[in-house]
């Protein structure tokens, strides 16, 4: 009898242990404190809790939390819980939550380049009509492109993503030497200061060889010559005279030892070298300024500055992909409330503060003349002037597009006698075939 009792107790304890071990883990995000977000809806105080997902980026997360607080103050019936995740797993997490039949987060910050993967499914809620009116009237065209599907919108841009136009310069390394203002001056400085050792350039001149900057600078170089890479039938063609000339110029920078391929192979950004006194200039979006001040603890104006990248061609032109935006999952438990939050976030007076906090460019036309923005961001106001010269990069999954383009560039750099035109043609065909978004935008 005793043995049976002991056996039964053992069985119960084992089952309990198994159940505990297999139980779901609560609070996965760093900002999480309430367990499974799908179970939320109402807190004990009777308030509706909205879950906002974003990726790890110190100033950005801080800004999201401030926006959440502001929304809570204006709407006492809601609380907004901001949860951040490492960018490397972020898209997988979004994909997973969208596949769930139960509610996940209510609001998700998403990178425009990967948005088509989510928009292609029916897992996102359509932007409400009143917000659509605002999008069409007041948002710059390159910010909207990627969020459209069959004439409807499935996301709201938070920024104008511009990876072209500005560069971080190391003020200490430049000393009294003036910054280059023409492309020729830039190349001259770059050649003079760079120092190569094997596959490493120990001191880099002008850096644009990282996964973000390379293609953006290349496309701008084509467009500034009066060329075009986006054909009338929607296909991509880099193998034009302008495209070949621009690629020869970029290859020349590598061959001259002005920069290496390390950032392309490691997935790092070129501005890190400038901040670590291993490079003079690095092309990057204005968001790179925050990395210098916040991550490296450097002082703007003393250690580094952000200045215009000298124009390659005669006319200012560039291509831009849609930047970070906000989406609302169709399976969200509080969709109406989520859109209320998005509307609140998008109001010019709120959005401008977020753009300032994150060193972003504003996506709204009405903010291009914002005195508040210009006063807070005097170092990037020169970019506001060129924004109207931008075109949308095109109906392509730009993350995949970058992968193919960067691989082609590395292969060209490694080849002894590269067939530049042939490589550009092959990459164009591959991008057109594999990266074109499979649904109609209009």
């Amino acid at each position, binding site marked *: 009898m005793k043995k049976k009792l002991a056996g039964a107790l053992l069985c119960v304890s084992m089952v309990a242990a198994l159940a505990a071990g297999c139980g779901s883990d609560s609070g996965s995000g760093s900002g999480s404190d309430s367990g499974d977000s799908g179970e939320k809806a109402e807190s004990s105080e009777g308030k509706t809790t909205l879950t906002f997902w974003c990726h790890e980026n110190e100033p950005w997360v801080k800004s999201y939390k401030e926006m959440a607080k502001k929304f809570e103050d204006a709407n006492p019936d809601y609380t907004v819980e901001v949860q951040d995740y490492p960018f490397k797993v972020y*898209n*997988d997490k979004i*994909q997973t939550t*969208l*596949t769930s039949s139960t509610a996940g987060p209510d609001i998700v910050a998403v990178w425009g380049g990967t948005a088509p*993967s*989510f928009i*292609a*499914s*029916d*897992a996102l809620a359509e932007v409400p009509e009143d917000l659509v009116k605002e999008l069409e009237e007041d948002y710059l065209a390159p910010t909207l492109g990627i969020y459209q599907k069959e004439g409807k919108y499935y996301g709201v841009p938070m920024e104008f993503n511009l990876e072209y136009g500005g560069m971080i310069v190391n003020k200490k390394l430049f000393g009294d030497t003036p910054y280059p203002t023409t492309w020729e001056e830039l190349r001259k400085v770059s050649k003079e200061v760079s120092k190569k*050792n*094997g*596959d*490493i350039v120990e001191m880099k001149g002008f850096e644009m060889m990282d996964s973000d900057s390379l293609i953006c600078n290349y496309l701008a170089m084509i467009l500034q010559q009066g060329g075009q890479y986006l054909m009338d039938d929607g296909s991509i063609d880099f193998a034009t005279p302008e495209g070949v000339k621009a690629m020869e110029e970029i290859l020349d920078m590598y061959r001259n030892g002005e920069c*290496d*391929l*390390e950032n392309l*192979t*490691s997935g790092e950004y070129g501005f890190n070298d400038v901040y670590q006194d291993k490079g003079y200039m690095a092309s990057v979006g204005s968001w790179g300024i925050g990395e210098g001040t916040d991550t490296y603890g450097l002082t703007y104006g003393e250690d580094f500055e952000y200045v215009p990248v000298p124009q390659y061609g005669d006319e200012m032109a560039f291509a831009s992909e849609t930047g970070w935006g906000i989406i609302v999952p169709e399976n969200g438990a509080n969709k109406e409330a989520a859109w209320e939050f998005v509307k609140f976030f998008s109001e010019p007076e709120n959005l401008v503060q977020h753009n300032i906090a994150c060193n972003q460019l504003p996506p709204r036309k009405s903010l291009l003349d914002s005195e508040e923005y210009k006063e807070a961001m005097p170092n990037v106001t020169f970019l506001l002037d060129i924004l109207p010269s931008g075109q949308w990069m095109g109906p392509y999954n730009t993350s*995949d597009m970058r*992968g193919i383009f960067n*691989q082609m560039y*590395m*292969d060209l750099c*490694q080849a002894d006698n590269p067939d530049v035109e042939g490589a550009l043609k092959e990459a164009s065909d591959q991008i057109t075939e594999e990266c074109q978004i499979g649904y109609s935008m209009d």
Partner: protein
Amino acid sequence: MCSLPFLENGMKNNRFVAAVLIPGFLFLILFAVFPVAYGLGISLYDYNPANSQNPFTGLENYRRLIHDEVFWLAVKNTIVYCLAAVTANIVITLFLAEIISVLPSKWMKTMFRTILFIPCIAPMVGTSTVWKYGILGTDGGLLNKIAGLFGIAPKNWFLTTWQMLLLIIVFTLWADIGYNVVLFTAGLEGVPREFDEAAAIDGAGPVKRFLWIKLPLIGRTFAFVAIMTMANYFQMFAQFRVFAANGGRNNTAMVLTNYVFKMSFDSFDMGYASAVAAALFVLVFMVAMAQNKLMRSDWSYE
């Protein structure tokens, strides 16, 4: 009503065996058999779980597989990697196990086994990252620093082709040999000393004794290690994802597991990814069956 005691005992035993085995089988069916079957099913669809409609495409994903150059490259790389890494693993671990088994004291044996086993405890994602930046790193990596001592200029290893695959094999060996060393040491220590001593009296040297006496006598351990290591290496993923997430230069380090992940979570093409996974399953199954048949031993020295 007559009762037969042996039959009653048999029934009781059967009930006990069933009670013990059923939860295990249920677990296996739920978490192993069902996902495999479900994955095979998915491979017949143009599947993205976020879509409201996932059309049935029959064998279209398998037809695509046949014409996919990257897939065949991944198959080739997977086979090359497995053959090279498993062969090197077995040779090295047998050598180390033999050395450890002839060490005079027990604490020395334990110490060496523990040292070799330490990398097996560490998560492979973590050790891969340490290797990626600390050892293979272009700027400041140990390998380039050592090369620098000999006047060799630093190299960006992530731009290499076959060398990248070789470095991944070296890493895998470092990370994984401890487990097989323990198994082989146990196997070698289980061989009765009489055989070894008899061969020594007959004039056989240590190498001959190892190759012709001990090695055949640990045939079962050898077969177990070879089959398990091969099956395990076919499914290696973490180091490939860390060292060459996109398959390395010209996909020279692309293996099937990484291709499955890439198709699933980079391209969100889960139907096709399932077809690739099914091909991997068939490949592992065939290799395991062939090994099992080739290495079967029907004898025992006990």
